[in-house]
Structures are given as structure tokens and as C-alpha cells.
């Protein structure tokens, strides 16, 4: 058969490029393969070879001559065939009969077929075309009639079916929210449902069933009108079905709408409240707090991710009243999107923050955070303990989050004396939303940071046998500002013609910069007034600056990056100022810092376009200011790539939780707000002794690539098959309070309101996974918990498994 032959030929064509010429010819010689080529093949001599012999001796197949649809058959052999109708519009599932004729005489005994691959609809050999039950993809097709190598075609447009409603379940409505099952016919995936002419949310089940979420309007008297509408092509509505609505409830409810969280409702019933009456919300009895002769007040908890409305009834021993629908107040953003932003801004599911974001929206929340004043740290508590407290209950958690982001690449190597860690953290929190130029200045003046890089006691050398110490100069550029290779504005490396990266600076710049940073001494060493709390070994670690000693400053000229000249004779302060300015203005700074900040807050592998958008803000905040971190942080968080995951995570989304993040997010979920200093040591057990970095290189490298892949994932540097096992042990210790310093929190939101495994898993899905917990994980948790009898252990196991899953280890 020509059809089979052609299909075979095309398949070969696809696999063997070397025979394209021949096979392409064969394919184009086969009219079936391409309807638009029909006229081109019409003129060829389609005379040889019947379909049954399959002769291909001439190299052309036995192509039937064709005609246009119902039109004149110009040069074909034999009589001109006409189809009637030549064009038909048919509803899905309907039939139409085609007739073939030539010279006014009916033609019988030809072959009917339907065009397309796959074939749309079907045709019987008596010419009866049966349209498919639904319209999918292209809404048109062609039928063919072939007789004696002559062909005629007719075209068909397919229309959506006309919907029809038979009945509903339930058949009567109340004032309550109801899931209505609609039975009928002609339903399609795009069918919509209206109630009294207004659209309501509906779900397609199959062609004879829809379900819809219905709340009758309060003005309803005795019935509502239901319709199903199918869209184009062939837009059509069902006849309306009138559904009776039972009488209004004999009580009123106050307030008239409620929000997520703890709520209280009062039902007032003119005919009186009897002593056995309680209030049920969506079928669950809530706790009565007071009753009076005509009213009853009760309180409950509404999971903040719920939307729509709740059914409220007065329930007595004799039965339930007619229900009333109590709408849930819509929020500015959904709980899931708010929870995701909280994961990016405040280290995880801090409940009060999520609810607040829901109410005020993302942009307002970020602006509020950017406008906060820095928290003060009391001197009566270890700074790291207080940091955890602020993150768990303070009002400026985005400051702490941003400060920690900077701590990872401008780390402090605080020593065992705990207070030594505070001055650098305070500086970062104070300047987190200021200029990056200020951060550079801080890094060059804070005693703790510079002490690990020997800025003090680096001095000018008049002795030819020694040279200035290069440590601070080199790492200031490599780690704190520019990186080792030149970058494009989208954060990718600039490559030379051989594909090699170009160094950002040479040893000459390192040497010159090492001479810039000479002549600085510890604050406190000469000063009379010191802050004794922060003074250790004569060094005041809280000082705003080092002390310059011009005698030890190298006053020669210096050249940086081969072009920035620092003239001879300048003071240590002048040299430092100009060198930091040169670094601040270096074109590598915006992409190097922007990409790191994106990685810390949103995702390890931002697209080059995302980086480039942030780099533009870093270069100019819109008011001509370079390095404005508040504009950069806001842009990073509100970028379309950052927010796309609110709807659906992408494959390259997310970052691996570093140990401190993992610990805090577990504490946020569990609502742990009261503890001693012990929790500050936990991340150190997983190689992240925060604020006490083992080296100037921090805890992980921004450019770390997962072994054996091309995936950039900085925090993965702390992941191996020992630390992952240990992380599980520690998480289990946090959840079960076996880990020193972590209390149980039965009063927390999660334990006080979600007391069964299924509701707990639902809560974890929203609080940790912003509604995107994989079904397989839900099943694993439910199955495991079902094997445990102790209800407390069941819930703890569910919490642990949700925290421990690597779908959550990667915050998306």
C-alpha cells in the first residue's frame, strides 16, 4: 500500500541522514505525507502500479491522481469526482454522511479515508464520518475518497460539543459551601460552570461529569440557575438547570468573614440557644467559650493556607441546623508563596512572618525589612545565642539573613572568647542595607577580620631583606570583592580566544596593594579610652577603625590594576581610601558580589540573565548610586526568576541548606524560641563553626561545583556521606529534644494544631514545601508513621522525615 510504503520511507529518513535525497523524493511523491503537496502531485502521471502490486520499478510510487476538494480536476486521468458536502462543520461526537459523485452520478465502491497522523475521527466505507468525542490540537481535518487512482477531498471543521446537564449531586443546595457533582454530557476539559451567570471554580472529571465548588449568593431566595459553557470552537451553553436552595439558617454569624490562625465566632439565634448546642466548622466541633440565651461563642484554629469559605452550623443533639457559608478573608499573597519568601528571607517557616507576608504582600514586607533599625545585642548574652533569638523572634530577620550571607565570604575568625564575634556581626547588620563601599571599608578596618589576614602589623619595609605582608591585599581582592578571573556582566567568566579565563589582577597589583595596607596598628594600644567589654590583650575589637602610624606606612607611589595611580607621599588613610575606591569601581565587583548574594538568598545557579539584571541595579540603583545593597537585595528577592518557583519549582532552582540554615529552619518550624547557648554549637559539628571560620575562605566557596557534574552549589562543599548521616542524627536530636539545648515545643503551632499524621503531613507540605511536597514523600511518611503506635513519636517522625528529606535539604 502506498500509505505503508510512505510511512516506512519516512521512518528510514529520520534515522539515516545519508539517504535523505532519495527518501525525500519518495516522501514528496506520496501525497499522503503532506496535504499541501497534493496539487504538486496532481500533474504527475499517477498511472503505474496499483496499490496491490506495489510496483516501484520507475522509482516513483503509484501515486493516485488527485483533485482539489470538490473542484475541477484539471489534468487528472478519469472523471472528476465531487464530494458533497465539500466542507462541513461538525460537533465533537457527531456524524455526517459524505457522498461522492462524478458527472452528476453517485459513485460507489471507492475508498474513504481520513487525513492526518494521528487520524482525527473515523469514516466508514459508506461515507459516514464520526467526529472524535473531544476536539484536541488542530480543529480541522480532511476526508478522502479514492477510486481508480482518482482522489477527491472534503474538509471538516470540528466544533466543541454542546453541553447538557442531566442532574446534580446533591440535588438541593444550602447556604453552605458545597462541592457539587454535575452529571450530563458533552463536558470537556475547558468547560466552565456558571451560577446565576457568575463563573464558579470547577473541575473536569470526564465527558459526563464535572465538579464545582458552589456557595449560593446570599440574596438567593429559592433557587439558583446552573449552566455549563463550552468555549470556542463552537461555543455552546447547556440549558440552565434550576437547583432549589433550602431556607436560610435561623442564625447569624459574626464576624462575617475570618482569617487564618486562631479565630472566634459568635452565632446569634433569635429563637434561642439550647444547652446542648455547639458550633461545627466544616464538620468539626470547635470549643465553646461562652453561651448566652440567644448566642454562642466558640473558638478554633484555621490553617492559614486554606482559602474559600467554611460551613458553619449549629449542632444540637437533634441534628444540625441549615449551614451558613463563612468566607475566608482573601490575603495579598498565598500562604505557600509567603512561606517560600520566608525561606529566602528569614531562614525558614517562621509562622508570624509568613502570616504577615500573606497580609501585606511581598514588596511591602521587603520594604519594611529594609527600613528596620538594627537590633541591639545585649552584653548579658552570648552573641550567637542572641542571633538565634533575633532570627526566631526579632523584627529585622532579613538583616540577620543578609549579614550571614556576607559572613560566608567575608568571614570572621572569632576566637573562643565569645564577645570577640560581636563587633563584626554588628557592623554587618548595621550596614547590610547600605553601600557595598561601606562593607569594603568595614572589612579593611574591623580588627577581627583584618587580624586573620595580618593587616596589622603589616608595615613598610626599609629593610631590603624583607617585604610587606601580602595576605590582606590578596584576599581583599580574591574573596571580598573581585574574584580571581574577569567576569562578564552576567557573571560568566571572560574567556580568551583559547577559552581560558583572564586573571583579574597580577602579582604586581598584589605587591602594590600590600604596600597600600601598611602602617596600621591595633586600636586600643595607645588609646586611653577603650570599651573594656570588647578589649582583649590590649586590642579593642569594637573600635571603628585601626590606628594609623605614618612612620610605618609605605609612602611610595603605587599602581593598581595597571592603571590606577596612588601618588607618592599619601597617608595610610588616603592610600586606603583610594585603593578601596578603585576596587569598588572595578567592573568585576558588581557581577562577583551580585551573584554571591543571589546564591545566598535564592538559588545557587542563577541564569546569566538574572545575574545581569541584578548587576544593573548594583551599578545604578535608579538614582545613580552604585553598590546600594538595599536595592540589590530587593531586586534579588523580587526578580521574576526568584518568584517563578512560587508557582512551580524549576529543575535548577534552590540552594542546599548549609548546616546553620538547616538548624534554624528546623527551629522555626518547631517554634523553638527558648534555649541556652548549646544550640550555637550544633552547626560546628557539621563543619560550619559560624562566626569562627577556620580560615579566611569561609565555610564554602561560591564557585564550588558538585563533583562529577557542572552544578554550581556552594553549600554542597559541606555535604559528604559522613556529614549527611550526622545531619540526620542532629535533626532527630532537635525534633526529639535528645540534642542538648533544644526543648520540646508542644505549645507550637505545628504540635498544638496538627495532631494526626495526615493533618501534620498537610501542614508540613505547606510550611516546609510551600505546597509542593512530592506525593511519593507523603506516602513514605504516612506509611512509616502508620508502623508506629506511639502518637507522639508518630508526629515527631513525620516532622523529622519532612525536615530530613533531600527535597527539603534543597530549599527551592
Amino acid at each position: 500500500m502506498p500509505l505503508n510504503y510512505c510511512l516506512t520511507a519516512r521512518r528510514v529518513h529520520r534515522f539515516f541522514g545519508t539517504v535523505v535525497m532519495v527518501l525525500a523524493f519518495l516522501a514528496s511523491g506520496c501525497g499522503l505525507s503532506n496535504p499541501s503537496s497534493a496539487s504538486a502531485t496532481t500533474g504527475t502521471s499517477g498511472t503505474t502500479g496499483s496499490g496491490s502490486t506495489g510496483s516501484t520499478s520507475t522509482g516513483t510510487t503509484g501515486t493516485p491522481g488527485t483533485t482539489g476538494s470538490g473542484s475541477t480536476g484539471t489534468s487528472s486521468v478519469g472523471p472528476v469526482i465531487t464530494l458533497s458536502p465539500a466542507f462541513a462543520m461538525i460537533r465533537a461526537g457527531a456524524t455526517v454522511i459524505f457522498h461522492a459523485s462524478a458527472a452528476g452520478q453517485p459513485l460507489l465502491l471507492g475508498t474513504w479515508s481520513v487525513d492526518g497522523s494521528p487520524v482525527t475521527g473515523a469514516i466508514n466505507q459508506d461515507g459516514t464520518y464520526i467526529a472524535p468525542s473531544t476536539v484536541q490540537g488542530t480543529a480541522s481535518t480532511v476526508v478522502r475518497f479514492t477510486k481508480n487512482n482518482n482522489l477527491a477531498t472534503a474538509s471538516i471543521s470540528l466544533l466543541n460539543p454542546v453541553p447538557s446537564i442531566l442532574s446534580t449531586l446533591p440535588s438541593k443546595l444550602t447556604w453552605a459551601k458545597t462541592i457539587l457533582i454535575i452529571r450530563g454530557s458533552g463536558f470537556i476539559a475547558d468547560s466552565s460552570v456558571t451560577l446565576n451567570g457568575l463563573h464558579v471554580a470547577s473541575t473536569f472529571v470526564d465527558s459526563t461529569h464535572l465538579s464545582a465548588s458552589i456557595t449560593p449568593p446570599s440574596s438567593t431566595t429559592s433557587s439558583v440557575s446552573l449552566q455549563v459553557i463550552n468555549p470556542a470552537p463552537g461555543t455552546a451553553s447547556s440549558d440552565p438547570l434550576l437547583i432549589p436552595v433550602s431556607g436560610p439558617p435561623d442564625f447569624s454569624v459574626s464576624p462575617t468573614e475570618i482569617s487564618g490562625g486562631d479565630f472566634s465566632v459568635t452565632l446569634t439565634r433569635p429563637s434561642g440557644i439550647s444547652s446542648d448546642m455547639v458550633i461545627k466548622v466544616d464538620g468539626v466541633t470547635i470549643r465553646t467559650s461562652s453561651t448566652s440565651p440567644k448566642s454562642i461563642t466558640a473558638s478554633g484554629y484555621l490553617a492559614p493556607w486554606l482559602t474559600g469559605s467554611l460551613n458553619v452550623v449549629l449542632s444540637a443533639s437533634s441534628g444540625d441546623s441549615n449551614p451558613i457559608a463563612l468566607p475566608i478573608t482573601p490575603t495579598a499573597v498565598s500562604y505557600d508563596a509567603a512561606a517560600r519568601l520566608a525561606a529566602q528571607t528569614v531562614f525558614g517557616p517562621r509562622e508570624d512572618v509568613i502570616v504577615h507576608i500573606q497580609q501585606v504582600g511581598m514588596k511591602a514586607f521587603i520594604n519594611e525589612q529594609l527600613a528596620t533599625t538594627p537590633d541591639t545585642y545585649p552584653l548579658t548574652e552570648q552573641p550567637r545565642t542572641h542571633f538565634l533569638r533575633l532570627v526566631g523572634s526579632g523584627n529585622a530577620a532579613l538583616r540577620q539573613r543578609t549579614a550571614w550571607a556576607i559572613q560566608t565570604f567575608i568571614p570572621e575568625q572569632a576566637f573562643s572568647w565569645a564577645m570577640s564575634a560581636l563587633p563584626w556581626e554588628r557592623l554587618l547588620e548595621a550596614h547590610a542595607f547600605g553601600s557595598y563601599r561601606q562593607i569594603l571599608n568595614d572589612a579593611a578596618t574591623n580588627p577581627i577580620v583584618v587580624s586573620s589576614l595580618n593587616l596589622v602589623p603589616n608595615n613598610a619595609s626599609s629593610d631590603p631583606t624583607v617585604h610587606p605582608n601580602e595576605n590582606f591585599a590578596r584576599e581583599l581582592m580574591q574573596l571580598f570583592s573581585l574574584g580571581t578571573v574577569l567576569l562578564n556582566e552576567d557573571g560568566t567568566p571572560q574567556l580568551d580566544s583559547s577559552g581560558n579565563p583572564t586573571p583579574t589582577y597580577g602579582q604586581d597589583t598584589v605587591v602594590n596593594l600590600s604596600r597600600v595596607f601598611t602602617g596600621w596598628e591595633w586600636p586600643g594600644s595607645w588609646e586611653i579610652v577603650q570599651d573594656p567589654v570588647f578589649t582583649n590583650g590590649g586590642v579593642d575589637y569594637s573600635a571603628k577603625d585601626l590606628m594609623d602610624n605614618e612612620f610605618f606606612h609605605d609612602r611610595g607611589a603605587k599602581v593598581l590594576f595597571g592603571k590606577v595611580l596612588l601618588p607618592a607621599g599619601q597617608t595610610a588613610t588616603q592610600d586606603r581610601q583610594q585603593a578601596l575606591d578603585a576596587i569598588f569601581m572595578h567592573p568585576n565587583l558588581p557581577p562577583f558580589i551580585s551573584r554571591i548574594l543571589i546564591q545566598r538568598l535564592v538559588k545557587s545557579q542563577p541564569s546569566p540573565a538574572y545575574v545581569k539584571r541584578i548587576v544593573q541595579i548594583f551599578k545604578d540603583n535608579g538614582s545613580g548610586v552604585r553598590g546600594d545593597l538595599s536595592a540589590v537585595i530587593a531586586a534579588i528577592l523580587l526578580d521574576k526568576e526568584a518568584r517563578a518557583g512560587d508557582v512551580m519549582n524549576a529543575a535548577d532552582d534552590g540552594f542546599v541548606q548549609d548546616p546553620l540554615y538547616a538548624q534554624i529552619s528546623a527551629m522555626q518550624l518547631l517554634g523553638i524560641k527558648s534555649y541556652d547557648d548549646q544550640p550555637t554549637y550544633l552547626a560546628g559539628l557539621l563543619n560550619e563553626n559560624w562566626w569562627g571560620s577556620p580560615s579566611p575562605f569561609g565555610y564554602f566557596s561560591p564557585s564550588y561545583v558538585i563533583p562529577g557534574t557542572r552544578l554550581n552549589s556552594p553549600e554542597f562543599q559541606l555535604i559528604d556521606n559522613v556529614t549527611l548521616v550526622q545531619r540526620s542524627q542532629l535533626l532527630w536530636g532537635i525534633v526529639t529534644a535528645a540534642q542538648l539545648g533544644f526543648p520540646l515545643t508542644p505549645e507550637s503551632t505545628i504540635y498544638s494544631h496538627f495532631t494526626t499524621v495526615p493533618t501534620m503531613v498537610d501542614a508540613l507540605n505547606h510550611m516546609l514545601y510551600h505546597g509542593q511536597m512530592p506525593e511519593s514523600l507523603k506516602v513514605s511518611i504516612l506509611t512509616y508513621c502508620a508502623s508506629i503506635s506511639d502518637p507522639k513519636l508518630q508526629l515527631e517522625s513525620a516532622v523529622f522525615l519532612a525536615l530530613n528529606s533531600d527535597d527539603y535539604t534543597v530549599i527551592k
Partner: protein
Amino acid sequence: MTLSRRNVLKFGAQFGVAASTSMLWFNPISARALEQASVGTDYKAIVVITMTGGNDGNNTIVPLDAAEYARYASLRTSLALPASSLIPLASVGGEASFGLHPALVNVAALYNSRRAVIVANIGPIARPTTKAEVLADYTKFPGASLSHSIGIQQWESAQTQTTGWGGRVADYLAPRSGSVAPVLSSANSLFNVGKSVQATAVQNGSAFTALSPALNSVIAQIAQSETSSNNLLTQQVAAVRARAMRDQQALDAAASYRVVRTSFGTSKFSQSMKKIAALVAGRSVLGADRQIFYVQQGGYDTHVNQLAGQSGSLADLDSGVGSFFSALDEIGMSDNVLVCTHSDFCRTLQANITGGTDHAWGNHHFILGGGSRGGRIIGEMPPMELNGTLDVNGIGIWLPTQSVTQMTAGIGGWLGLSPAQLADVFPDLRNFPSAIQLS
């Protein structure tokens, strides 16, 4: 073939059924019984110690020849070690004499008993290189960046970029490493990463404590399922976890298989070497006859107060290495295990103003044990002069005269890689006359 226990393991590893056979050695009694069947006599392992921060080779190996020592002392000024404090190395024939840093007691003893070699002035260069070439365009020489991260990357990859030389050697050894990966590492490093091989992490104690077997089982099951997550990072973390649940049990069983009596120091490095000795002793439990161990030992970034800092770090190194060879002697594996050192870079010969030294290039390293022909220095020690033919910037930054590739390829050869395999693992090898010869 006789289905010896080891062959069973190899079969398992090759055909992906290790998880089922591995159940055998979660039970130490089964493992002991099976060990009778076959023990590899062809066992070879290497231990690569990276001295993080950039060890100052100039004060690690010091010339004792009077004239050369005098030049050393005048150029090093306050950092010069007194000649009397150095441990003399036995010189062969008429060779110049050298001494080791006074902290390297055990290393010197190994050298003087001809069980250790010194590789002189070695560093990352892709081909024999002249000072003029470097001065013409330093950007063509990554080793000349003098950056910690690039120096480490150059050493541990043997001058490639995305895989480590340990991992690439291990790609060829994987069929002989038994139930765990051929690279057992106590630190995250590029060294460990092969084209297919990724390391199994080793820690000093056991990774397992509190979780019930049922909970461990569901963790493993969830991790296995998440290796096919649609998120790329989740896939990777889950893959590590899924393997961890199996490997860490196997390592615990191997490390506790045989008691090693030699005592080790309490430092993290010494304890890591102790763990490696225990794993060598328990190698039959894993079914391994080729293994690569990686460990880091730190404190060498001596920009200030170098004399005290380097001395403490070298003493820690020496103690761990000394105990390790005692332990190898105890279990009869001294000639089967070879130890070598790496570091970010050497340090400037000239001191800086803060009593320390800064980043430099060509350095000196040790290869110990493994039955290699010891008591010799491979290559030439650089002359003690600034601005000479080997000093690229006037403060004593040595241009390497031997490549990392030559040293590491020599070790690859010791492990049994064929010339073709060596050429594949060490792409720069063809640019040099030969790898160093250890026998």
C-alpha cells in the same frame, strides 16, 4: 573462576548488586569467616596528605653545605633555622648535604633508612618552563597566580581543571576497590573527583549513633527515590545520602575488624591516620586491593610568626606519619602503602615584615614507604639566591623544575597503571622526559 569471597564482591560491585552481598559484612562474624577464603596479597594503597595553606619548603629542607647554608641564612634573616638544629640527611655519594626541619624526626628516620624520597623544586607547570617565558606573560601560568585556591586546584588535579588526579587514577582502579569507592577521603577536595569515581567520606569515629534501624531504612528508601527528583540539586544530595547509608556501615565494619595496637597522637590528623591504618588492616572486609586515601593537615599559611607556626604543624605531621608507619609495620603492610605530601605552594624565600613569608611556587615534597628506593633527592634543589634563574620575582619564588605531573604519574605507575592509562590520567606527561621513578 572460583567464586572466592573477593570475587563475589567484585562481581557485586561490577554488576550493581553490592547492596545485597554487602549485607554479609554488616555482620562482622560473617566477614571473619569469609576472610579465610581469599585475601589479596597484591594490595596497594596510597595516602595523599595535603598540607593546607602552603608549606614553606625552604625551611623544611635546608642546605647544610657550608657555603649554601650561609647564603640561606643571609637571605632568610630572622627565619633562618640554626644549622645545628637541622636533622642531617644521609647523603649518597658526593651529593650535597641537606638537613630536615627539627620537627621532622620520624620523616628523617624514614629517609635515612632509605624508605623515603624528597622531590625537589616541584610545582604546577604544564611543560618545562623558563623564567623568561613566565615574565613575558604570567597569565599563561596558573601556578604563577600564587592563589591558595588555584594552587590547590593545580596540585590536586595535576594541572587539569575539573577532575582530580586521585579520582582519575581511581577510575581505573574502581574494579579493584571492593564494596566502597576507591577513594576514601577525610576532606572534601578536587583530588577525589574522577570522571566517574566520587569519593567515600571517612571520619575518625562512626557516623551512626541514634537512629533506629527502621528509621535508617526509611531514610535510605526516601533518598533512593529522590535520586530521581526533578530537581538537579536534590538528585545530587540524595545520591550521596543513598550511598552513605550503605558505605558508612561497611566502613564501620572494616575499621573495627582488626585491632591496631600502635598508639597515635590525639590531633585530628593523627586520628585520621589511625583510621586509615585501621581500614588498611580491615581491607578484606571491603574486598579492596587498591585504595587511595586522602587527608588534609593544616596550619601552613604562615604570613606571620612562621617559626612557631610551621614548627607546630610539621610536628603534627611528623607524629601522624611516624605512628602510621609503625602501624603499617605492625600489620606487615609497610611496602604496600605509599604516602606522599602536597601543598598549595611554597613560600617566599625572603621573609615579610611580619616574621612570616608569602605565597610562592616551586616546593619540596616527600614520598614515603611503598617499598620505593629511598634515601635520595629526586631533582635539583634551587640555589639560594634571589633574582637567579629560578627566582621569578626577586623575593625567592622558585620556578618549578619538575612538574606535579611527573610526581603524581610516578605514583600512578606504582599503583599499577599502564603507560596508556598514565597518558590518559596525566595529559601533561608527554611534555616531560618521564615520570619520577620510585623503584
